[in-house]
């Protein structure tokens, strides 16, 4: 019987044209994803092949989550088909077993979904063979990844979703409930993603994600390029467990469906009284008089009818259970995202209203899109599906009323979500003890963020009305969403073409909404008029009565298109075109003159970048004079966002020959009022690239000097297609000398992306000069036209602001309503300066007479004292262990959170409002990264501002890794050595994760080519491990000598190789293999405790027996690994914890280095107290891909 049911069901499914249409659409999507170069889903970047197994797995898993919609159609739809077609009685009166009936239906539906997913796999596979796919990025073709994905991921996922939705459908007998189930899953998977943001909760996310995606991400998180190109994840551990758990849950749900399924009743109602027929029905009519009324149809009546209908529809939506369910899920997503986002090193930020109000939109974006689409369909079809339309369509009310009312109802849904979000976030703020709630800001953000959804609602209504088919309407919305993403990928990102696009409106406590609103509002007006036109079209095509045939609808539309409609259409069209032209004038004409806000599509910008390299690379190494002093008068006009820069460079020819051509580059977007530097003629002027070459009438002789004066202006006009540059703003200006002229060809302007280069025939990726390139040592890695310079600037700003720049304040005065500050540096400094202006409060501290000042936004006083303390403690450590601080003052300055970084200039450290200033450090156990970042930036005053590397491999190790090390030491002094592990774990995680994203090749630390994950993340680990091995004093002595010898050096500049020579010289040769491992190789350890036992001896001491495993491999640049022999010494530690204590409470019972020279080692150690856990390399100082197994709980007998 089951076979009969199943084959009946399969015939039904395979004969269904919808199945084949959906299969073809999905296969085409997959084909597009695999054959289009623009799509980079699935992590196929850099060196990872387009058809790498890991990419195929990711893509197919992604499609399997999308397939929830399929399951809703094929499985849930099948489950309900007999009830919808009223054929249920027919089946249930035949002797079909309930089990066979259900399994037949379920199996058939599941099979249909599998057919679609097989089509996806085929579409993907075929896509890779297309002739236009870059063959250089293809690995060998194999069926294995497809089969693995289908059987490990896709089919179990389909089975689970199918079982869940089937259960929901047969028990509720409601498609609506099923759709809500789908939405609930989307919400859940969003939650899973945020959960895994927390390092220690990852395995939880891996188990809980029903789709197995998180488990795969966890399993492949630390994979290198080679592994990604050749391997499939191991089917074991959390992944296997996940698959088993969810398959079991699916089987359980299927069983539940079977148990709850009743052939004899209309679905399953939970404690809901079924509405009984009303009994009261008196036979005798009540005498009644119905008053005579005249029906009103005037505009006043229409308005009141509209309000009434809007209220009625809104009430209908808001009262429904589906909305409450979705609202619940929406709030769940929001709360989880509030709890887990914004953490840095696991430490939270204060829930400032600025951040909270932006996180509401962030949390709801996708979810609300689905909700609006869903309710647009429900609302448009409400009257007709309830068969009320036959009545109301014959009423004398105006045609526009129902459509307008539905727009109101949808808007109400959006506002309700947003308002609930506000209540939740306010509650969250209060729960964190944060009381500066700023309701007005919430309201402003609500208006800004919901306006897009109202336009989206208009679109969703329009597609429903125009298509006049609910399913097609939904499908069109899906197509809209996908095409929006596709447009972005294909670089059609002009907001004039991208439906409902508008530039972002970043909010900052310092600068408020700044200057971003006008551009945003113009774009909103433009697309708002478009949405109005859509609504008007919907109004004309609105189906009233039985006119659903197209030519009847057109006839009706003609009849409706009266003078009022014509005027409205004309006004909307005029607004659309007019605002479009104004926007275009701003974004294309004004913003391009000067081209400060200029809009270029992504690939056009890359083409321009390529042009620069092609045209001017010939001038690389062309002898140019060097800048020896920089003087400037900088006038900042914050309200106008304008800066006038009059400056003067002193140039010297250090070359042996005379220089006859000056190669000057001034960033595009600046207005050049004048340049003067002696008599010259213009040899080349390329305003597009901002490059000019001037032939000096009198060549600059060897050793001769020349003044180079410039008068530049930054003055953006109009608004851009995106938020545009944020350096010069009303409150919180921060720009550096990147806006001033640079001499010579600028290598940093070259394109780094290998694939983009290949498309443009640019040859191999430009790499940093090799470490033994002696010629490259003529420059630092900062710039090619200056060494140490004299620096002096006078900066002015509006009367209510302070203006800052490196150097010491010489004089401050006010003149004609403007404030002037004259700064001068007393020693030569790096050619790296910043100018800042804002309304700050100032907090002053000092260290041994050196003033420490923090300039901060008045409401951001939280961590100012901590910053001062960090600076003091940094000075304590660095002055004692390294060399004396070279400046007489230190300033830390807050700038708006449009970017989140801190940067060290001489005696001046700009620090973003988005990171340290609003970090919530009230929890004692949290990592105090404010302290850490401050210490890091202060360390740069030594590492970069005293010693700076040449423009060759390894130089950023000297500034960044050594600053990391210095800051770690200040941290260690503050928090204790045993606290470092928690922090270093984050560094290790980030290092290991980022390796796979390597675009060129991973290099050992000493040869780092400005790769952030190496010089920051690995740098911290390497120097800390080195310190642990050779001792803090030895290392600091080496550093001190290095600083003394190489500080303020003239070319040739130092290199990491010179540093390693100092290091080897200053350490016992027994450490030299370790130094090679750490700095000159990419080495991974696999240290773990296999067993740990302890026996209490009679003397009260404990004998601990440890079985240890230790091995190591060396990786090449793309991850190929070769095994190395273990011959090292590792720390072995045994720790005690008070009962119920955490890691922070632990005490060290034993900590010694032991030589280890084989993979398996057994150690016996006697300790005084009862051990809690023990470990090899217990503080995770070495790079080990599984850091948790370095320690193990001790079994005490």
């Amino acid at each position, binding site marked *: 019987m089951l076979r009969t049911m199943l084959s009946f069901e399969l015939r039904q499914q395979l004969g269904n044209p919808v199945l084949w249409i959906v299969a073809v659409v999905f296969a085409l999507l997959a084909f597009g994803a695999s054959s289009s170069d623009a799509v980079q889903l699935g992590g196929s970047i850099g060196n990872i092949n387009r058809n790498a197994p890991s990419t195929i797995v990711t893509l197919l898993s992604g499609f399997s989550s999308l397939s929830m919609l399929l399951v809703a159609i094929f499985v849930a739809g099948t489950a309900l088909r007999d009830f919808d077609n009223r054929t249920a009685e027919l089946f249930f009166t035949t002797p079909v077993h309930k089990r066979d009936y259900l399994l037949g239906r379920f199996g058939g539906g599941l099979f249909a979904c599998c057919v679609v997913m097989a089509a996806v796999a085929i579409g993907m596979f075929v896509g890779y063979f297309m002739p236009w796919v870059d063959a250089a990025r293809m690995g060998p073709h194999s069926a294995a990844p497809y089969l693995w994905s289908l059987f490990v991921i896709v089919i179990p996922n389909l089975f689970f979703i199918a079982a869940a939705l089937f259960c929901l459908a047969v028990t509720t007998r409601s498609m609506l409930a099923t759709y809500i189930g789908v939405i609930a899953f989307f919400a859940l998977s969003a939650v899973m993603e945020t959960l895994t943001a927390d390092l220690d909760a990852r395995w939880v996310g891996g188990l809980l994600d029903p789709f197995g995606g998180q488990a795969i991400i966890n399993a492949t998180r630390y994979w290198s390029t080679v592994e990604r190109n050749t391997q499939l994840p191991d089917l074991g551990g959390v992944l296997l467990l996940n698959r088993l758990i969810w398959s079991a849950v699916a089987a359980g749900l299927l069983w539940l469906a079977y148990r709850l399924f009743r052939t004899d009743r209309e679905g399953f109602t939970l404690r809901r009284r079924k509405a009984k*027929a009303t009994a009261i029905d008196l036979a005798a009519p009540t005498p*009644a008089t*119905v008053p005579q009324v005249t029906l*009103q149809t005037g505009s006043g009546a229409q308005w009141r009818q509209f309000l009434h209908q809007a209220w009625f529809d809104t009430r209908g939506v808001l009262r429904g259970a589906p909305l409450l369910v979705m609202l619940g899920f929406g709030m769940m997503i929001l709360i989880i995202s509030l709890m887990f986002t914004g953490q840095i090193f696991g430490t939270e930020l204060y829930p400032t209203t600025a951040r909270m109000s932006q996180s509401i939109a962030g949390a709801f974006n996708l979810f609300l899109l689905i909700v609006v689409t869903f309710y647009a369909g429900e609302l448009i079809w409400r009257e007709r599906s309830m068969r009320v339309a036959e009545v109301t369509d014959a009423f*004398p009310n105006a045609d526009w009323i129902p459509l307008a009312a539905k727009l109101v109802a949808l808007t109400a849904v959006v506002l309700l979500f947003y308002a609930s979000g506000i209540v939740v976030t306010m509650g969250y703020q209060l729960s964190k003890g944060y009381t500066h709630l700023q309701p007005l800001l919430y309201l402003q953000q609500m208006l800004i963020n919901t306006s897009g959804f109202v336009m989206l609602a208009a679109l969703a209504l329009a597609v429903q009305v125009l298509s006049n088919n609910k399913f097609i309407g939904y499908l069109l919305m899906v197509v809209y969403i996908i095409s929006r993403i596709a447009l972005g990928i294909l670089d059609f990102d002009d907001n004039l073409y991208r439906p409902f696009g508008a530039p972002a409106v970043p909010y900052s406590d310092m600068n408020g909404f700044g200057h971003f609103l006008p551009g945003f509002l113009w774009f909103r007006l433009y697309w708002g008029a478009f949405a109005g036109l859509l609504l008007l079209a919907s109004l004309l095509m609105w189906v009233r009565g039985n006119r659903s045939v197209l030519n009847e609808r057109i006839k009706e539309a003609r009849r409706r298109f009266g003078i009022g409609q014509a005027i409205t259409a004309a006004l909307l069209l005029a607004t659309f075109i007019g605002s479009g032209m104004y926007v275009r004038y701003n974004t294309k004409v004004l913003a391009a003159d000067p081209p400060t806000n200029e809009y270029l599509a992504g690939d056009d910008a890359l083409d321009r970048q390529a042009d620069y390299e092609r045209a001017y690379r010939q001038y690389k190494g062309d002898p140019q004079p060097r800048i020896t002093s920089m003087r400037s008068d900088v006038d900042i006009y914050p309200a106008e966002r304008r800066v006038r820069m009059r400056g003067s460079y002193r140039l010297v020819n250090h070359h042996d020959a005379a220089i006859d051509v000056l190669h000057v580059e001034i960033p595009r977007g600046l207005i050049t009022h004048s340049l003067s530097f002696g008599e010259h003629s213009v040899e080349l002027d390329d305003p597009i690239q901002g490059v000019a070459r001037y032939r000096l009438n009198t060549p600059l002789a060897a050793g001769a000097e020349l003044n180079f004066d410039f008068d530049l202006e930054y003055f953006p006009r109009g608004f851009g297609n995106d938020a545009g540059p944020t350096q010069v703003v009303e409150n919180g200006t921060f720009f550096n000398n990147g806006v001033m002229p640079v001499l010579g060809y600028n290598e940093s302007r070259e394109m780094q992306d290998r694939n983009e280069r290949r498309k443009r025939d640019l040859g191999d990726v430009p790499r940093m000069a090799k470490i033994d390139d002696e010629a490259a040592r003529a420059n630092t890695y900062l710039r090619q036209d200056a060494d140490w310079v004299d620096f002096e600037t006078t900066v002015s700003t509006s009367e209510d602001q302070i203006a800052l720049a490196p150097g010491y304040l010489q004089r401050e005065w006010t003149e004609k309503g403007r404030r002037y500050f004259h700064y001068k540096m007393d020693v030569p400094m790096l050619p790296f300066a910043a100018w800042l202006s804002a309304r700050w409060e100032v907090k002053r501290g000092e260290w041994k007479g050196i003033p420490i000042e923090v300039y901060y936004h008045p409401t951001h006083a939280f961590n100012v004292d901590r910053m001062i303390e960090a600076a003091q403690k940094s000075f304590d450590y660095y002055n004692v262990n390294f060399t004396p601080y070279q400046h007489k003052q230190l300033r830390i300055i807050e700038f708006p959170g449009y970017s989140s970084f801190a940067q060290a200039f001489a005696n001046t450290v700009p620090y973003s409002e988005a990171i340290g200033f609003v970090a919530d450090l009230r929890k004692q156990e949290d990592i105090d990264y404010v302290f850490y970042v401050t210490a890091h930036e202060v360390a740069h005053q030594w590492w970069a501002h005293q010693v700076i590397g040449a423009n060759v491999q390894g130089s950023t190790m000297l500034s960044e890794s050594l600053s990391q090390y210095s800051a770690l030491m200040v941290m260690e002094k503050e928090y204790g050595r045993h606290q470092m592990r928690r922090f270093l774990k984050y560094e290790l995680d980030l290092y290991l994760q980022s390796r796979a994203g390597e675009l060129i090749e991973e290099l050992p630390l000493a040869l780092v080519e400005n790769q952030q994950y190496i010089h920051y993340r690995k740098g911290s680990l390497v120097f800390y491990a080195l310190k642990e091995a050779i001792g803090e004093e030895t290392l600091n002595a080496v550093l001190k000598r290095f600083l003394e010898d190489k500080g303020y050096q003239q070319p040739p500049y130092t290199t990491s190789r010179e540093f390693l020579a100092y290091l080897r010289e200053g350490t016992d040769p027994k450490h030299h293999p370790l130094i090679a491992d750490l700095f000159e190789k990419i080495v991974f350890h696999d240290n773990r405790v296999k067993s740990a036992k302890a026996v209490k001896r009679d003397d009260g001491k404990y004998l601990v027996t440890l079985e240890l495993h230790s091995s190591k491999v060396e990786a090449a640049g793309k991850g190929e690994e070769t095994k190395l022999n273990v011959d090292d010494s590792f720390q072995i530690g045994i720790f005690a914890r008070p009962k119920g204590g955490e890691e922070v409470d632990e005490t060290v019972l034993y900590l010694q280095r032991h030589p280890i020279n084989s993979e398996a080692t057994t150690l016996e150690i006697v300790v005084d107290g009862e051990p809690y856990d023990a470990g090899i390399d217990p503080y995770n100082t070495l790079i080990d891909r599984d850091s948790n197994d370095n320690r193990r709980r001790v079994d005490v007998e």
Partner: protein
Amino acid sequence: MLAIRNLSKTYANGVQALKNVTLDIPTGMFGLLGPNGAGKSTLMRTLATLQDADSGSAHLGELDLLHDKQAARATLGYLPQEFGVYPKEAAYTMLDHFAMLKGVVNAGERREVVEGLLKQVNLWDVRGHKLGGFSGGMRQRFGIAQALIGNPKLIIVDEPTAGLDPEERNRFLNLLAEIGEQVVVILSTHIVEDVTDLCPRMAIIARGEVKLAGEPHEAIASLDGRIWRKTIAKGALADYQQRMNVLSTRLVGGQTVIHVLADALPEAGFEGIAPDLEDVYFGQLRAAAPAALAA
């Protein structure tokens, strides 16, 4: 008076639903009788402005129903064949909503209208109950209340008694009879008794054409002395159908009784009976149907 002239409608699938329909419908109840698929609903919906005719006209007095749609809607009360409500709304709120949409925007007026109508259709006592719990008859009475909002001059009621039990049907027809005195009420139905009981005038429509229009008693009178009845054996029916104009067959107490139309006694065993409207109706249907299909 409602004057319908030469109304024709052909659907996109080729079905000709109305063929040159011409009817004069005076004030009072007017029965529109026809089998399922005869074109009744098309005619009703066209008059109710819910769809367009291909040609022809319909005037209510001076008012052009087909072209002046908004004015037509303001004079119209329409109870469609499949009348739906929101099951979770109470009768009062729903009727209030309908009254608002129909144009009774003044709150005080609307309260009086809704109250009066609910009392008139005898639903006042259940005004607070959800419509989902209403019986078929109550729902149809609610439908009539809705159609009566704003004192319509033309009331169109499409198949209102289908599915009602006899008691509910009676109550509903009484209600209709009460209101059918001053205005034009078109009652479309395939149940002959509805018309017999209620309508002073009627028309029979089949395959899109008006077969007969006039007063029921005149139509019945035209068959005087021409209807014959006989109780026959079950197996003999086909034979009779071939030989005679069999209007209807009916089972009475398990035996087959046939009515035959003939100017004189068809054969022995038949008895002459007084014709009724049903004979008229079936007579018209037989005439309209091709002979081979007559059954």
